[in-house]
């Protein structure tokens, strides 16, 4: 019933956004309508956790709302509400220089609806169609600045890789469709598959959904698509869209395979997860584009979550309740954290770009003096994103690492344990690199002096902008203070599937004490504030020592590149980036470096560019089938029918 309310609401919303010129008032009304639409979902947020009323909607097997769906609907709703509030501020600029806001909002509308149906949908056809709608609408949102050449080029990466992923998703569904002869997810649950079918289904789904989540060789679209998209769309994509693959892989394991998983799958997820997470944040550390840093960090976080799905699957395969519960807890907790802080950071990035007119952090600096409120809000976001203890992200990372530690200590089989040791090292490096990259981002952007003297900063603040920041900061504090929420959600998800009543959640092994810690910090902060008023009265400002030179040039500060120079030099071999190695004339003469430069070119040109050009060429060829002549189409139909009959004759 509540779902139908939402759909009726959507019809009105669509009519409203698709027609009529936009002005400030209409913009505000549209965003208010979007907010109200997300609020109609509130009933669905609870429905999945309510034992009596969870299940199928409208009496058919088209939409299903269980604990997993409700959990992801909560994240979807929270991200959506925050972004809607923010859009009031962000799109005001668009009102002046970009006329076609109707099209833009229609695409956002389609994007949102597709994501909603993907979450609640329980039918393979509905799912696939909506996945395609989501891809296409987000593609149009990404290339909104289509006048720039790079925009289309980079958008195409996204389109191609998303469709490659689509192919693999279809491949992953096929074994289930064959075995259950049905498109309903309901009939797929626990259906008997041969080992080959199981492996094909799982690995194809992993690659297919991994392409959307940024699996390692297919992650190239993420850092390319985000910088060109507008910030609220980036926030929606990075905050929520990348959670959909996670939800689907979780559904594959929990619902479709009914928790009967192979150990190999868990190990694959663990290795791929920790490797991709490490590489993602590793490249984030040296980026100069503020949105690329965040995009690479998205790769890191999503793959950390997927590594935890790996821990969860290993726990299921070994039937170890403690590993299962730690993995599940970590993945749910980190999904929620990532949804909140990454959305917050993308919104802040949008605001900074809007105010300064540049995406490059190499030009920024000293924003704290002109934007004190924004800098304090950003501090909370950055502390959370870099996993500093009183904040929620650290708790989820700790739960993940503890899950891996339990594998090392409790599991049998030395190979599994060795692999997990390697993964723990990678995850540890990942967390410290996340810390480094965001300390770097924050200290370069906010403290010090501007690195470009021409940097102009608009300082006027906007109520809805600040409201959205406060919304997400409050959300971050709530998840930091109440980690117990997630163990309830995890136990509902495990308990909801009746096939494994044996697994009881055991989360008593380690204690979260964020509430205590935050209280201590707050109390001491108040005392210190009182003390400092009294004690530090005689603080004087003076010119710092400068080796006798009269002034300190603004260029003499440490820049965004030099701050990570030792780390870059230490891991030189891993970067394989031409721009990173040509910082010194000396290196250009070095023969080994030349080899590096060539290899990098090989990797991008052959590895990606040729593939993507090839796929585009193939599409052009396929398009010649679509020639608009009716008799040809009837001919295709006839030919397909004949072919299918022949195939049937052969197989049956």
């Amino acid at each position, binding site marked *: 019933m509540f779902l139908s309310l939402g759909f009726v609401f959507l019809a009105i919303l669509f009519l409203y956004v698709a027609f009529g010129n936009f002005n400030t008032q209409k913009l505000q009304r549209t965003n208010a309508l979007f907010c109200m639409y997300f609020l109609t979902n509130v009933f669905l947020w609870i429905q999945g956790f309510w034992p009596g009323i969870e299940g199928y909607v409208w009496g058919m097997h088209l939409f299903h709302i269980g604990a997993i769906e409700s959990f992801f609907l909560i994240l979807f709703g929270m991200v959506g509400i925050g972004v809607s509030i923010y859009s009031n501020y962000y799109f005001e600029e668009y009102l002046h220089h970009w006329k076609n806001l109707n099209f833009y909002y229609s695409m956002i509308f389609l994007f949102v609806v597709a994501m909603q149906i993907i979450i609640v949908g329980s039918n393979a056809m509905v799912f696939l169609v909506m996945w395609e709608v989501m891809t296409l609408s987000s593609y149009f949102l990404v290339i909104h600045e289509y006048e720039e050449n790079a925009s289309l080029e980079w958008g195409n990466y996204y389109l191609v890789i998303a469709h490659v992923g689509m192919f693999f998703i279809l491949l992953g569904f096929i074994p289930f469709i064959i075995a259950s002869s049905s498109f309903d997810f309901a009939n797929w649950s626990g259906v008997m598959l041969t080992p080959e079918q199981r492996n094909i289904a799982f690995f194809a789904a992993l690659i297919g959904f991994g392409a959307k989540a940024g699996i390692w060789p297919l992650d190239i679209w993420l850092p390319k698509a985000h910088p060109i998209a507008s910030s609220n769309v980036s926030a929606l994509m990075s905050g929520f869209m990348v959670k959909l693959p996670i939800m689907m892989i979780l559904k594959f394991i929990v619902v479709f395979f009914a928790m009967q998983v192979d150990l190999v799958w868990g190990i694959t997820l663990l290795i791929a997860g920790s490797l991709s997470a490490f590489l993602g944040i590793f490249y984030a550390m040296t980026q100069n584009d503020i949105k690329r840093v965040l995009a690479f960090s998205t790769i890191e976080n999503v793959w950390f979550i997927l590594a935890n799905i790996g821990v969860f699957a290993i726990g299921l395969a070994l039937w170890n309740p403690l590993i299962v519960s730690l993995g599940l807890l970590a993945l749910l907790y980190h999904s929620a954290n990532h949804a909140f802080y990454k959305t917050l950071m993308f919104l802040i990035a949008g605001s900074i770009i809007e105010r300064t007119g540049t995406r490059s952090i190499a030009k920024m600096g*000293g924003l*704290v*003096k002109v934007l*004190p409120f924004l800098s304090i809000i950003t501090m909370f976001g950055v502390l959370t994103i*870099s*996993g*500093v*203890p009183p904040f929620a992200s*650290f708790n989820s990372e*700790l739960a993940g690492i*503890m899950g891996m*530690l339990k594998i*090392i*200590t409790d599991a049998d089989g*030395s190979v599994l344990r*060795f692999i997990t*040791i390697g993964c*723990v*090292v990678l995850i*540890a*490096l990942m*967390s*410290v*690199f996340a*810390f*480094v990259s965001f*300390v*770097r981002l924050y200290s*370069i952007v*906010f*403290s*010090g*002096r501007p690195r470009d003297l021409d940097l102009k900063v608009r300082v006027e603040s906007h109520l809805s902008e600040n409201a959205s920041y406060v919304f997400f900061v409050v959300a971050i504090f709530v998840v930091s203070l109440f980690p117990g929420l997630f163990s309830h959600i995890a136990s509902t998800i495990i308990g909801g599937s009746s096939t494994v009543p044996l697994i009881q959640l055991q989360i008593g092994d*380690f*204690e979260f*004490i964020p509430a205590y*810690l935050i209280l201590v910090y707050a109390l*001491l*902060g108040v005392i*210190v504030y009182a003390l*400092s008023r009294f004690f*530090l009265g*005689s*603080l*004087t*400002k*003076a010119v*710092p020592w*400068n080796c006798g030179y009269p002034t*300190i040039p*603004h260029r*003499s*500060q*440490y820049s965004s590149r030099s*701050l*990570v120079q*030792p*780390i870059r*030099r*230490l891991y030189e071999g891993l970067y394989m980036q031409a721009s990173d190695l040509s910082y010194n004339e000396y290196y250009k003469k070095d023969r080994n470096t030349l080899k590096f430069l060539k290899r990098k070119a090989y990797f991008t040109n052959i590895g990606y560019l040729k593939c993507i050009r090839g796929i585009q060429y193939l599409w052009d060829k396929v398009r010649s089938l679509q020639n608009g002549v009716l008799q040809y189409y009837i001919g295709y139909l006839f030919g397909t029918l004949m072919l299918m009959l022949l195939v049937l004759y052969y197989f049956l």
Partner: protein
Amino acid sequence: MFLFVSYFFCIALALAAIPFFDTILKSIKAIMNGRRPLRLLQGYFDLVKLSMKQTFLSEFTSFFSVIWPWILLINSLVFFSFIPIVFGYFDMNILYLFCVLSLGNFFIVLYAMDNTTYFWGLGAERELFVLSIVESTLVLMIVLFAMIGGHTDVAWLHMIFNKSVFSPYEIIFYTVLVVVFFYTILAENKRFPFDNPSTHLELTMIHEAMLLETEGKQLMLLEIASKIKMYGFISLFVWIFIPWSFGITNFFLLFLLWIFKVMFVVAIIAVWEAVITKIRIFKYQEIFVILLVSQVLLMAFYILK
């Protein structure tokens, strides 16, 4: 409640003893270098002297620089308050305990970058570099604790080596873990092979470079914060690796024993710092790679045993 009060009484006593330990460290180093030792209460005098000085700040700094030293001090205090001196009170994961300090690292880098001079930036850069190297060794050490002790909670860690007879493989574990933790203390607190705070040369400094022009009360705050952090690490070392209480049960005698144990570790650090030299910054990773590999070998040994 009695436990709670006596635990924090312990913490307060230990905090009061920290400048004294620091004086001992400097004195032993001075004797080793052929200089005259310090007065016994010199550490306290230094702090008082700093607190009476006027504080100057760079004119480019923002309100960040006014607040951050205080937050650093709070962070170090919170870290120290979770460390068992005589007995453990909190069920706290040791990884949590180490990561509490990352807030302090965050703010000291911001503090350094806020000053805008190149020297401070250099300190920040090296601080991040050392952090990125130490982390994985630290996590593997925790994995080893979990493997051989079955616990990762700080309050339980002293049970691992609290026995009178060691089996041969326990001796190997003990030796490697002691070396790893010792080098972690030196690297995290910017002690000698990694940093030479007594010279003001840009080649050698890390921590000192970040507060080169700090003076007066701010310098006092930062000094106290870094000392608390260092002696927190040393107390943790004592708690895990020198856990023997020799049958003593009296609270005050146990505290005295703790003082002697810390002075023992301090003496080792001082002697070690006097005999070795600072190494090049791009050689740091070599030490930690050796430690990492030896830990992995230990794990292989344990798993295949």
